[in-house]
């Protein structure tokens, strides 16, 4: 197994082949009829072993998903980063409201005056506005900084394991 969890601590236990496989499939997944066979050929193992290793990496949660990472704007969606100042004693309740929207994809607490940072992604601009209005109404917190990206200089989502 690639990962052991002990007392809540994640211990890295990939073997060299798992690492190679993960590096290969983060950005160069083969778009061919038999992709697992092709990966196996590159690694010198069988298609069955590639599938078994991927299965285990998914079960242990190292791989969250195998598939497409989409550009939301190019699919026609509108999104924005939002920031709120939430009093400490209300964090649980406010997070409950914010996270209840399927359109809220990420939410982090950060150490600053604006301590709750979340992203909203909706099929239309009007739906996006509705969600923010509902959050204001349900939490009673009127000030939400809306910070849509105006320019992208970098998005890197893969990590080299070597």
């Amino acid at each position: 197994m690639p990962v052991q969890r002990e007392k809540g601590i994640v211990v890295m236990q990939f073997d060299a082949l798992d690492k190679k496989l993960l590096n290969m499939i983060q950005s160069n997944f083969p778009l061919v009829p038999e992709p697992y066979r092709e990966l196996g050929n590159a690694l010198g193992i069988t298609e069955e072993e590639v599938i078994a290793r991927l299965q285990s990496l998914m079960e242990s949660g190292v791989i969250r998903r195998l598939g497409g990472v989409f550009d939301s704007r190019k699919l026609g969606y509108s999104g924005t980063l939002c920031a709120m100042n939430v009093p400490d004693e209300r964090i649980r309740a406010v997070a409950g409201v914010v996270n209840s929207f399927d359109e809220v994809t990420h939410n982090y607490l950060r150490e600053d005056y604006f301590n709750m940072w979340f992203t909203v992604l909706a099929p239309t601009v009007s739906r996006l506005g509705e969600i923010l209005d509902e959050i204001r109404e349900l939490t009673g917190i009127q000030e939400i900084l809306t910070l849509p990206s105006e320019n992208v200089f970098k998005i890197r989502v893969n990590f080299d394991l070597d």
Partner: protein
Amino acid sequence: MTEQDKQIVRELQKGLPLVSRPFKAIASKLGMSEEKLIGRIKQFVEDGRIRRFGAVVRHQDLGYVANAMVVWDVPEHRIQEVGSVMASFEEVTHCYQRPRHPGWPYNLYTMVHGRNREECIQAAQRIARATRLEQYRLLFSTAELKKSSMCYFEEKEFVECRKNTPDP
């Protein structure tokens, strides 16, 4: 986006099946040929609708445990130049320009990853020196309250997609 394109997106976000011919399995569900599906996916990659095709990895499990959002106050006329310099740093995974707000003068946002806090702080200092910027702050994350994959074109079928993209 045609209805068929939306169907392709819906299937791809459920995850590629671990079978010998995964594209054929999806294609037959959609009533199209394997060849046509692969061609369509390549087209999506080419036109940028798919930013990347492959595995989404939980990087916290891979040793990058600390992350800071570093926000910068950059003079408008230097945005392009500074954005490119910041993007060139290995520690910077994301770099975006965003609007300023009254009382919040920051207009450039970088995500900085490191093995610990100190690495993030040092990376921010190196970036500040390289860009000759003095107005910035680091916002360390203290808790991840939600992290999920967006389910596109699934307004009526959220449940099915969510089931296949569990939150960590």
